[in-house]
């Protein structure tokens, strides 16, 4: 066989190949609809264009999804991320709004620190329920999903707190070196999480816990501690996302911030190739997943799809993404094209087992 062919097979076989193809297809569709879609110009020293918007708007989702990846890798799930984002954003805004000088950097840093601290406490709460008491993750985090939303509204008294703080606003809409600051934060957090998991042994240990918790325990892994940790990390990521979302509009809306973001985050993780059963996780896949989701949302607006049918459009794209990504689906197609090719074995991935 020619080397070109094997190289091609290597590229198409890569996990990120099909999600990236989907992303490109979506962008291409937009460009066909409106050729200027891809154009990026420099306005007031900032890059400006739909592409930049997509990346900037996906920053909070990327953050939440990163934390979610780790939680899902342990075989858990965190429904509370949206509420945690709302709580932390609300607390930060409340604190800033009470300062005499909202533009003081010190005040903003204090606000962010306080809110971040509280988010860590909320993450620890989730961690204790799951790892300490042994409540099923979905229900454990559902508690905070419901109560956290109330907490956020309690903080804002059910109103929208509007602030006027340049330093805080920077988190959401500022620029650094022509790039939106939000993108830089997302990159930085991604880097931190990647280093934390892939340069240390944390990633492997998380995957071991998610792949087979009992075996990991018997191998001396402190699985509870790890499980606890991922919920804290997830809450921390959600908190930063909360700052971004509130800074984006310079206001905290306890009801709307992060609403349904947990579903998007889980979807991003799954599109990225991580299994909900736990085990292997792929941060790069998660990021591509988040970009796909945001591109999809932006496409609806950019292509002016009737809101009444927008959901149908989303459904079609989501199902297309997962079909194209599924090896079983592609194999079926290929077989039809090239009869005689090997049928795929229906080997389902299962937790805690090693078929001989």
């Amino acid at each position: 066989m020619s080397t070109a062919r094997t190289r091609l097979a290597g590229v198409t076989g890569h996990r990120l190949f099909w999600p990236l193809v989907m992303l490109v297809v979506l962008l291409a569709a937009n460009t066909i609809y409106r050729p200027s879609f891809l154009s990026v110009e420099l306005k007031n020293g900032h890059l400006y264009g739909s592409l930049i918007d997509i990346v900037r708007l996906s920053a909070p989702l990327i953050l939440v999804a990163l934390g979610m990846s780790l939680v899902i890798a342990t075989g858990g799930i965190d429904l509370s991320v949206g509420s945690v984002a709302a709580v932390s954003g609300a607390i930060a805004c409340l604190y800033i709004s009470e300062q005499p000088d909202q533009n003081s950097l010190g005040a903003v840093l204090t606000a962010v620190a306080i809110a971040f601290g509280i988010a860590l406490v909320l993450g620890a709460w989730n961690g204790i329920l799951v790892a300490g008491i042994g409540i099923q993750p979905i229900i454990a985090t559902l508690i905070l999903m419901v109560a956290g939303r109330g907490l956020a509204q309690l903080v804002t008294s059910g109103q929208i707190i509007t602030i006027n703080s340049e330093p805080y606003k920077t988190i959401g809409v500022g620029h650094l070196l022509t790039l939106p600051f939000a993108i830089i934060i997302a990159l930085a957090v991604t880097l931190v999480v990647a280093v934390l998991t892939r340069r240390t042994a944390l990633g492997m240990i998380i995957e071991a816990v998610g792949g087979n918790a009992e075996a990991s325990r018997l191998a001396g892994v402190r699985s509870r501690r790890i499980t606890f940790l991922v919920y804290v990390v997830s809450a921390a990521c959600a908190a930063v996302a909360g700052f971004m979302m509130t800074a984006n509009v310079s206001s905290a809306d306890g009801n709307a911030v992060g609403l349904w973001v947990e579903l998007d985050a889980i979807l991003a993780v799954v599109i990225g190739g991580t299994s909900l059963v736990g085990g292997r996780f792929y941060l790069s896949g998660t990021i591509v997943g988040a970009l796909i989701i945001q591109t999809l949302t932006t496409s609806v607006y950019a292509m002016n799809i009737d809101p009444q049918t927008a959901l149908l459009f989303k459904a079609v794209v989501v199902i297309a993404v997962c079909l194209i990504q599924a090896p079983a689906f592609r194999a079926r197609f290929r077989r039809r094209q090239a009869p005689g090719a090997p049928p795929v074995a229906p080997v389902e991935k299962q937790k805690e087992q090693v078929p001989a």
Partner: protein
Amino acid sequence: MTTTPLAARGPRAWWRVPQRQVPVLATLALLLVMYGIGVSQYRAFSNIQVVFNIFIDNGFLLVVAVGMTFVILTGGIDLSVGSVVAMTAMVSASLLGDGVHPALVLLIALLIGPALGFAMGCVIHFFDIQPFIVTLAGMFFARGMCTWISSTSIPITDGFWTSAAQERIRIGENFVTVSVLVALAVVAVAAYTLAYTRLGRNVYAIGGNQQSALLMGLPVGRTKIAVYTISGLCSAIGGILLSFYTLSGAPLIAIGMELDTIAAVVIGGTLLTGGSGYVFGTVLGVLVLGVIQTLITFDGSLSSWWTKIVIGGLLFAFILLQRLVGIRKK
């Protein structure tokens, strides 16, 4: 040549509850405690009608949760239920509005849900795609259908529907509605199916270990598809009951219902990883949610946000106690 018999376990006393039922019984006990608290706090709480109302108000949730129980028992999940409920109600309302005969409407409405469920099951099985993502797409699809049919709510004035909605079945001083009877019938059928049919046992088998079930020669694919179809059917029935309940179809109704149903199933002691749980537990789970809500309405002094915090708190207290009781009995 003979092995020594393995250390025999003590004979089982007739009153000793089998290990497996402990969590469900603990849940039942806690539910009763919670009800007792309600009765002691609020005078009107002791009316039998309050209990009946919990059933009336949660009949559709119960039916949908029963379907979800099947799915979760196989270790899957179905996020589309809320949207399918809404879609069913929407379709019924709009067809009735067009003057289609109610019997035909009923038939069509009861076919759409299972058809979507069947399609999702096929995608999940044949293409080996995670249920979460497939049913999420199903959720978008069904909700999209709702807004596509109409962006406003459609009232139902059909005679059959209104009489089904407003018929009161008297039980002494109090009453239940048709929905309650339908819901209880669904529960009974589901409980029988899970316990006494091959399909039901295969559901448990797949939840225990799909790979093993496959190697044991069980019809894994067929069962998985069946389970999502059943969930679709239950959602469709739930949708009909909801359209009885509200006598209309509204595009935004039943948003977030998938979480309520999953919560009910899991509170009822079913493991999200599959293979363990009972329909009876699900009934209890739905009742727990219903009682929590009733307690909050009866209190009537909570602001919007405290309502959420208190719901979370009660849920936490309940689940914590459930865990503790369960552990102690072991």
